[in-house]
């Protein structure tokens, strides 16, 4: 019974409120890390919800329009369970880094987000979305904060999310002077997901990132702290073009 109740709720959450975390270095969050002008980052992500036995694949693309302007796209597809309406809605976001303070120890950035969610099914309505993202990087630690609000049009419910992500570079403790680097980062996050008519579901995420020069492999586990109390497993890869 619980599973029957949770499955549609989970489906709604996944199909209607998916992240567009194309270039994020947080596991589930946006960040203000730059995408170079003309460059693109593609991300493929699998998220498994063990409680409702559901698996969703998410394809993301981040495209750098300029040094401070990025277009982000996200499209989810439900792999399991099978059935109709597996394709989620297309999320489109424009990110403008409006403030940036680069210095020897790292960087601080603030970006504004605006965009829309385009339904891929006639049964669902569109949404507009707006938010912000901030990044603070010092030495081996990066903090990312983001929040996004989606205002539903017509019958679509409003929704929102927040992500607080801390990434710590485990190795190397000190970068070599020159040469190609591979690094391991530990990621700890506090996330929140909200949908009109429900309470905010707060979540904790723990993960690892294996970061190479042109690709990243990452995995993590997310536990709901309230609400459905679901456990999710996430694997993802990012490629820079």
């Amino acid at each position, binding site marked *: 019974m619980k599973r029957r109740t949770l499955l549609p709720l989970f489906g709604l959450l996944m199909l209607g409120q998916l992240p567009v975390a194309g270039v994020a*270095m947080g596991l589930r969050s946006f960040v203000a*890390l*730059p*995408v*170079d*002008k*003309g*460059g693109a980052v593609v991300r493929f992500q699998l998220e498994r919800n063990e409680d409702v036995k559901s698996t969703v694949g998410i394809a993301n693309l981040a495209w*750098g329009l*300029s*040094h*401070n302007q990025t277009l982000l796209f996200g499209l989810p597809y439900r792999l399991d369970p099978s059935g109709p309406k597996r394709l989620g809605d297309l999320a489109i976001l424009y990110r403008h*880094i409006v403030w*940036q303070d*680069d*210095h*020897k120890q*790292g*960087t601080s950035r603030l970006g504004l987000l605006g965009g829309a969610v385009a339904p891929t099914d006639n049964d669902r309505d569109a949404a507009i979305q707006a938010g912000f993202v901030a990044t603070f*990087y010092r030495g081996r630690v*990066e903090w990312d904060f983001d929040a996004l609000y989606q205002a539903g049009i017509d019958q679509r419910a409003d929704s929102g999310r927040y992500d607080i992500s801390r990434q710590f*570079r485990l190795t190397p403790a*000190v*970068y*070599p*002077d*020159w*040469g*190609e*680097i*591979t*690094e391991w*980062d530990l990621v700890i996050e506090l996330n929140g997901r909200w949908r009109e008519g429900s309470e905010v579901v707060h979540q904790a995420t723990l993960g690892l990132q294996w*970061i*190479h*020069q*042109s*690709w*990243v492999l990452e995995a993590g586990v997310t536990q709901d702290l309230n609400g459905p109390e679901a456990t999710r497993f996430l694997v993802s890869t*990012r490629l*820079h073009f």
Partner: protein
Amino acid sequence: MKKLLQLILVSSFMVSLLASAETLEVPIQGMTCPFCADGLHRKLGELPGVEKAEVSLKLKKARLTLKEGASLDKDEIRKAIIDSGFTPGEVEAK
């Protein structure tokens, strides 16, 4: 007057070009991880006359090795860094 004008023009040209310098280094601020700096690495490597581009996250700088006899405009280097989302310092010949 004409000679003075020519001198100014030639001087300006010489300042903006780093002719015959084999290795150039430029401090860069704002880099955070190897993946984030990949775009910068590629852009610097694609600059005309560059044989090898290296980026150091530790030293916060890039090093460009030029092809023999090649020259490179400082502004092109700075533009590549800015387009990658970072803040360049002064380009220096090594």
